[in-house]
């Protein structure tokens, strides 16, 4: 029976063994579930945002950004991000440097504390600031006396944003710097480099992609944060509204077109972030691989 022989041979050369290979049905079902899930929960809402935003025409869409309240919200969002990103770059570098290059008491406590903003609800984060800086708070009387307004004003929003975004840069840098170790810095020192030269010419180039990655994530969160900012903002139109808060107000006032138009700005920001993130992620992975390869003992 030559046919049977041919059949059994052709089974033998199929890739993978039957025991470990999923049937094509399983593959299709699993992929289908994943894609449907993504479609319903991610793509569809995104499409809705843009169709709703453009429902009354491109003129109305663009017009909703001319509104002084919208402009003020954009400005405040840019300020919050503009202050918190540089601050957290500095903080992230210092923290990552201290954690990976020095041994000190409380090192693991610091690592845990960096994650605190991830662990705690943003509303709680906002309330903490109200309790400290608010009129009834610890520093309230002193601040009132000196006529400094933090809560229900821009400084409060910036503070809340800084708090919410501070893990991003540090968390990206710590694993990479741990992997890279101390030796290159020590080599630079034996070759006569001062601290700043060493940082600029050896450390920074080695971590630049991870740093950029952290900055992108930090920025996205700074511009999109709602909960903590909502608590400290006071929702004063044209003064203490950020973009996410502005969306909520417009929506509650049934100005759907304007609400969705503003929301589409945030959605565009998210898409840009994703694209940048993917590109930078690739470079970070390469840097990690390179470190692993150079550190290899063989």
């Amino acid at each position, binding site marked *: 029976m030559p046919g049977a022989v041919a059949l059994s041979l052709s089974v033998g050369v199929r890739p993978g063994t039957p025991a470990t290979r999923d049937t094509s049905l399983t593959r299709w079902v699993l992929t289908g579930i994943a894609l449907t899930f993504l479609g319903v929960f991610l793509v569809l809402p995104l499409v809705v945002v843009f169709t709703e935003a453009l429902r009354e025409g491109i003129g109305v869409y663009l017009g909703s950004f001319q509104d002084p309240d919208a402009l003020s919200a954009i400005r405040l969002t840019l300020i919050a991000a503009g202050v918190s990103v540089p601050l957290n770059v500095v903080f992230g570098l210092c923290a990552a440097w201290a954690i990976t290059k020095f041994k000190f008491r409380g090192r693991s406590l610091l690592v845990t504390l960096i994650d605190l903003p991830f662990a705690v609800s943003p509303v709680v984060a906002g309330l903490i600031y109200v309790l400290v800086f608010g009129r009834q708070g610890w520093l309230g009387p002193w601040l009132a006396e000196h006529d400094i307004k933090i809560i229900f004003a821009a400084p409060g929003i910036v503070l809340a944003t800084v708090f919410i975004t501070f893990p991003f840069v540090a968390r990206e840098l710590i694993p990479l710097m741990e992997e890279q170790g101390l030796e290159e810095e020590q080599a630079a020192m*034996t*070759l*006569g480099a001062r601290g700043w030269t060493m940082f600029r010419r050896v450390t920074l180039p080695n971590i630049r992609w991870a740093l950029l990655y952290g900055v992108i994530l930090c920025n996205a969160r700074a511009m999109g944060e709602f909960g903590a900012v909502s608590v400290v903002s006071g929702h004063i139109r044209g003064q203490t509204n950020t973009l996410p808060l502005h969306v909520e107000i417009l929506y509650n006032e049934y100005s759907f077109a304007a609400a969705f138009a503003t929301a589409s700005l945030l959605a565009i920001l998210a898409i840009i972030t994703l694209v940048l993130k993917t590109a930078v992620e690739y470079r970070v992975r390469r840097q990690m691989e390179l470190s692993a390869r150079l550190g290899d003992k063989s």
Partner: protein
Amino acid sequence: MSIKVRNVSKSFGAFKALDDVSFDIPTGELVALLGPSGSGKTTLLRLIAGLEDLDPGAGSIRYYEEDVAGQPVRKRRVGFVFQHYALFRHMSVFENIAFGLRVLPRAKRPSRKRIRERVHDLLGLVQLEGMAGRYPSQLSGGQRQRVALARALAVEPRVLLLDEPFGALDAKVRTELRHWIRKLHDDLHITSVFVTHDQEEALEVADRVVLMNQGRIEQIGSPADVYHSPQTEFVMNFLGQVNTFRGHAHGRDVEFADISVAASDGVIRHGDVRVFVRPHELEVLPQKNGKPGFPATVLRVNAAGAVARLDLQLPDGGLITAELPQDRFARLSAGTGEKVFVTPHRVHVF
């Protein structure tokens, strides 16, 4: 540039890495710090470089006569070669080697042209011409090692310090690089210290060997000196193979395995001792020849190599190893299971 290390101690928490270590390295010598892991040799090297701080008040380190204990590493002008090279991964070979020149203060920094010439001279010295544009990840281990060396030499260091310089290389490259480093040192004559746990490496390359154990120096001397006249049991055991017997000392003589012979150092002792005999210090004869000796049975013969190695069993069951030149082994013509007669011609007692 001579280095003087005086009463140096270093602790990491409760662990005493170095305990009151003193020694001198004369100008232009190539010195090996040899010892097992945890003996403090790398710590000592890093202290000399300034990559670790001395315990407060514990000793001094001088380059020539200048006390460098408080000096930061960047001012010491040392060339340090790390075990895993620590090349700057984002810089080309050229940039790596030029780094030490580029970070000099403006007044001392050579011109671009001068830097380029210097780097190319160094690339020639380490036999890596044409590799200037490569990145560390594109080089083999031996090549990275030589780039690290060129980078360290670029700043014209006062001393060259190498941490396990051959440790991360495979056996063949290792031997090549060993000879090459020795030759380089003979050309440059820069005072150099290298750390190794490989006794063969230390004995072959160094002018002088510093043997370390548990944070202390056991012995310092030329390779021949430490090999032939070990002063402690540790050195005896660490440098090459050795047979150990239980014995008893009476004055200058020691009794072991039913014989009595004079110890090599001629010191008077009494009481129980351990007796050490190197495999090549045992003579193996077909029968008794009048010299003090003891009988043994041949267990195994390995005649491959420059010398023949015989595993022997003593009447009391103890196992020893003897090495004899191939011609002597041919004359002996002893096979497995045969009875032979063993005469030590040199025994060590500590």
